[in-house]
């Protein structure tokens, strides 16, 4: 079998970026939560907020560290595997990525040190400021990287001259048509991820009866936040979808599994898209609902996939099903937070073991939903790398052979398997160790200023937690 460097490069990019994305999507939400906890402690001096802040900062340190390690890889992927694309799009992408490094990465690095180890060394207000700056850094970082990604989806403010994009209007290019909705959708997804993880871990502590007071507060806060965010995300997602309908109609057609432009298009609950035959098998749908959602009218038209030639179509089954996974999980999140409100009114929020178990499991749901959403938007853009202007095949590194691409793909999978195993193992231990005892003052002075070393928990179960020294 001939190894295809294009396919392998796409698989490799999908793998390394998905692996990397898990960490920032969590830390963006968590950074803001930690800043909020610091703010609450600053105002009320209630030690519960402080203990929660310290515990979640330890978790944050590990996750952030894994994000940093996998992020270094990302800054070289464009060049190694997509050199033609890099050369063509550098005039826009280069400044975006560089600004991300100088305005976000350095800000995060600077104030993370103060956040993790500045306790007792800097005044409390400065410590709170550090927490805010770390949170701000995560937003700035997502701003630049989503501006770059959105530009690839809906290019604007640039012209293609002699195979090179030239920026004609920086404001238009950065604030391109899909950017505002994508940014809002992504930031809310990050908050949902942080919220569901904190809710899930708090629920688990309540189930085993540890630090009940603090974890009740954490759970309550999270559920109020999620009660607003989960339905709001559905609304923002809908607007994002309408924006996609306007600028990338074929992607929306693939999401709906709709092959021919038509009115009264059903919302498909199940189907097996058959790209060869350009039709679906085993369709089950709700009549006219897709028309209603997309055009707000049962007679509204929905674009069809076959309006473009098969070579310009995305892999329909992947887009179609990833979209259903994302939306399904989104609806499940709404159901869970509404159930939480109902239990709260009955006064059983903290005691209903079944609900707490559900929350525990749901802490994984946002990660799956985010990855599914990215698969929808990225594979839905195929075969375009820069939508309508440059294909994947045009962007790949010409000198790359199938053997080289396979070598590094297998290599990254192997390396990340070890990193992931070690990280998850260690994170589990941090969570099992739980919060510091109330009166304890961690001897922060002698600890090195490093992300992971803020989590002073021994790596193996036979060792005692060293923060008790």
């Amino acid at each position, binding site marked *: 079998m001939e190894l295809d460097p294009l396919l392998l490069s796409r698989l490799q990019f999908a793998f390394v970026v998905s692996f990397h994305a898990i960490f920032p999507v969590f830390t963006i939400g968590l950074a803001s939560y930690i800043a909020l906890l610091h703010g609450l402690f600053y105002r009320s001096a209630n030690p519960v907020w402080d203990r929660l802040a310290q515990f979640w900062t330890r978790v944050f340190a590990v996750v952030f*560290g894994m994000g940093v*390690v996998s992020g270094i890889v990302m800054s070289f992927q464009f060049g190694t595997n997509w050199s033609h694309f890099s050369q063509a799009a550098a005039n826009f992408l280069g400044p975006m990525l560089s600004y991300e490094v100088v305005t976000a*990465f350095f800000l995060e690095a600077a104030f993370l040190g103060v956040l993790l180890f500045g306790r007792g060394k800097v005044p409390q207000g400065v410590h709170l400021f550090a927490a805010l700056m770390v949170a701000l850094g995560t937003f700035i970082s997502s701003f630049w990287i989503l501006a770059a990604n959105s530009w690839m989806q809906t290019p604007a403010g640039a012209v293609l001259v002699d195979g090179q994009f*030239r920026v004609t209007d920086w404001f238009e290019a950065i604030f391109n048509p899909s950017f505002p909705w994508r940014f809002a959708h992504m930031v809310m997804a990050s908050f949902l991820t942080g919220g569901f993880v904190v809710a899930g871990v708090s629920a688990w502590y309540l189930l085993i009866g540890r630090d009940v007071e603090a974890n009740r507060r954490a759970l309550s806060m999270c559920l109020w936040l999620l009660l607003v965010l989960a339905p709001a995300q559905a609304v923002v997602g809908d607007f994002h979808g309408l924006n996609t309908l306007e600028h990338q109609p074929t992607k929306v057609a693939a999401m709906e599994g709709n092959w021919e432009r038509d009115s009264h298009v059903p919302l498909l609950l199940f189907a097996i898209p058959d790209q060869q035959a350009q039709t679906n098998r085993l369709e089950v749908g709700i009549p006219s609902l897709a028309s209603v959602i997309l055009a707000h009218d049962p007679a509204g038209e929905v674009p069809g996939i076959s309006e473009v030639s098969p070579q310009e179509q995305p892999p329909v089954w992947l887009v179609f099903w990833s979209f259903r996974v994302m939306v399904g999980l989104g609806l499940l999140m709404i159901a869970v937070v509404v159930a939480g409100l109902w239990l709260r009114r009955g006064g059983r929020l903290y005691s209903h073991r079944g609900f707490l178990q559900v929350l525990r499991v749901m802490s994984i749901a946002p990660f799956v939903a985010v990855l599914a959403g990215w698969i929808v938007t990225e594979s839905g853009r195929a075969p375009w790398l820069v939508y309508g202007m440059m294909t994947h095949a045009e962007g790949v590194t010409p000198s790359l052979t199938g053997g080289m691409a396979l070598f*590094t793909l297998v*290599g990254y999978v192997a390396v990340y398997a070890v990193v992931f195993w070690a990280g998850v193992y260690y994170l589990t231990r941090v969570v099992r160790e739980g919060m510091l005892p109330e009166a304890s003052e961690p001897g922060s002075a002698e600890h090195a200023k490093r992300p992971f070393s803020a989590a002073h928990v021994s790596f193996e179960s036979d060792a005692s937690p060293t923060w008790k020294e």
Partner: protein
Amino acid sequence: MEFFDLSIIWALIIGFGVIMYVLMDGFDLGLGILYPFAPDETSRDVMMNSVAPVWDGNETWLVLGGAGLLGAFPLVYSVFLPALYIGVFLMLAGLIFRGIAFEFRFKARRSRRWWNRAFCWGSAVAAFAQGAVVGAYIQGFAVEDFTYVGGALDWLTPFTVLTGLGLMIGYALLGATWLILKSEGHVQAWAYRIAPPLLVGVLAVFATISVWTPFVDGAVRSRWFDHLAVIWVLPALALGCALWLWRAVRRRQEGQPFVATLGLFIFTYLGLVASKWPVIVPPDHTIWDAASAPGSQLFLLIGVLFVIPIVLAYTAWTYWVFRGKVRPDDGYH
């Protein structure tokens, strides 16, 4: 645009970023290379703790280098990375393993020796790959129509193996002199002992490369030998630093060996830059060929000029906070 040349300004910024990375990550990679030769486990604790607070800040310069090249000199980015595809992967894998080794070694009990190995091999592979990049840069790349057209392992030649090993020894020397500065007792005595042989190794590679390079690249030959140019001052200063280092180690001075090694690196680096300037993608492409659009260079320059001083201030502050001798029970314990 008539008043200043953006490409020259960017070449200075990128050049500054590269030497910052080499000097700063150099000594912590060097400690990893020296790791298996350390006298005991206590020394290894000291070695790791001496760089634990700063190493990830050091590596951020590498990320800036990657993104900055894409922004200012995309041709470099889109030729070097495909040409060095396998080497770049090995370097990244090395950096990942040594990075997580920092984090997990102090938490591990039974598996500690595995994290020791990950730290050593990761550092060694990353250092070798970076040295090979320098060699590949001197060799030049097969480029047609702004695209790399060579093979996967074109970069791997006897010359790049030599530069790879050379940088490993050089980083080890940086690591050893850093350790002289930051340690005491038997760890420092060991560092004093290994510094002179490492210096001899560096000078041997330095001499071999200097003799070899003019044969690899005719343009370099003519620059150095056609007329006795002022650039001969650079290798002279490098040798002066080597002599200074030798004497400082003999006299058991603590700070000077490290500073002398920094000087040795800086003047060698400037010598290399002087050999190639203004070619940035050898053999044919200059910084002006490789540049991105002036509008892009300017858009990025405004922000970078504003932020880099802040970054430098913070970095200096971090080193200040963690100044002084490192003891075995510092850091992670």
